[in-house]
């Protein structure tokens, strides 16, 4: 049950240790039957490599795209996904739920 040894946060630490520029994406709010609970995380590097999960596959592609951009700008951003946003994001949650995902670049310090 404990998934502490190889989860997104440990991978994030390892990647920054290797000198890779990274961002963390975190599910911060869910409505309806969202696939992953608040707190679920994805780590992304500037090449678009990623580990972890924020939705079980539905929106990871879009999150990775936004995260790579956040790594470049250095600014955090909030993303929203849901059925109603299909036109805007071209992705959606087939389960009918809605989620907010916070993307934050990790500064080396």
């Amino acid at each position, binding site marked *: *049950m*404990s998934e*502490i040894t190889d989860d997104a*946060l*440990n991978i*994030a*630490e390892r990647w*920054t*240790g290797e000198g890779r520029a990274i961002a*963390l994406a*975190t599910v*911060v*709010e869910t409505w309806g039957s969202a696939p992953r*609970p*608040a*707190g679920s995380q994805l780590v992304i590097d500037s090449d678009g490599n990623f580990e972890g999960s924020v939705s079980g596959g539905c929106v990871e592609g879009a999150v990775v795209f936004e995260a790579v951009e956040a790594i470049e700008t250095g*600014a*955090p951003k*909030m993303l929203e996904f849901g059925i109603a946003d299909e036109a805007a994001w071209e992705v959606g949650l087939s389960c009918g739920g809605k989620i*907010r995902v*916070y993307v*934050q*670049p*990790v*500064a*080396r*310090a």
Partner: protein
Amino acid sequence: MKSSDLIVLNALRAARQPAVVVTEIASGDVQVLTQAEALAHGLVDEIKPRLLTGKSGMVGVAGAEYFIQLHLPPPRLVIIGAVHISQALAPMAAQCGYDVVVVDPRTAFATPERFTGVTLQADWPEQVLDADPLDAWTAVAAVTHDPKIDDLPLKRALDARCFYVGALGSRKTHGKRLSRFAEAGYDESLVSRIAAPIGLDIGAANPAEIAVAVMAQIIEAHRRRPLGDLDSAA
């Protein structure tokens, strides 16, 4: 967030210490807090209930949005005694999300056939607990009926301030246990933490029903633990 925040957070998690991460959404400013720091934080009213449930979420305070993320150590259950009750209790606890260890030096009881899918240690509790010490995020249920096996892990559980300490045995058996522990220098307030007879009083009549009563008592102890106590133990 900074890479140094990640290092602090991961160190707390690896040490099985609770950690709370408060992120101010607009600025991206991050604070990584220990439980003691969280209980002294400006958002304590929002954080405190979450320390019990482990649920992360957004809060709005004075026009600012924050994400509060909880990292609680996964609870463990150490069962002393590979008996009938344990055969029902171990899979039940695993389903509730507990890391389960069953300890029994009597190799006739501690067989892999009787315990699939849980960690089984066919060794004396002393050896097992020396190698892998108890902590405040661990529950201990001693169910062998044998003081030679049960007493040491019960004492260790009290010393480590395990969030749950339960021992099988009638009131009479427990009375004898209390006098042994008193002689060993354990004061009454500490020993009163032992749940005995073990399990919630639901009239359990067989090993599986006793396991349900024990699991329910463990869940109650975990979800309703006094935060101040754990705090001073940490």
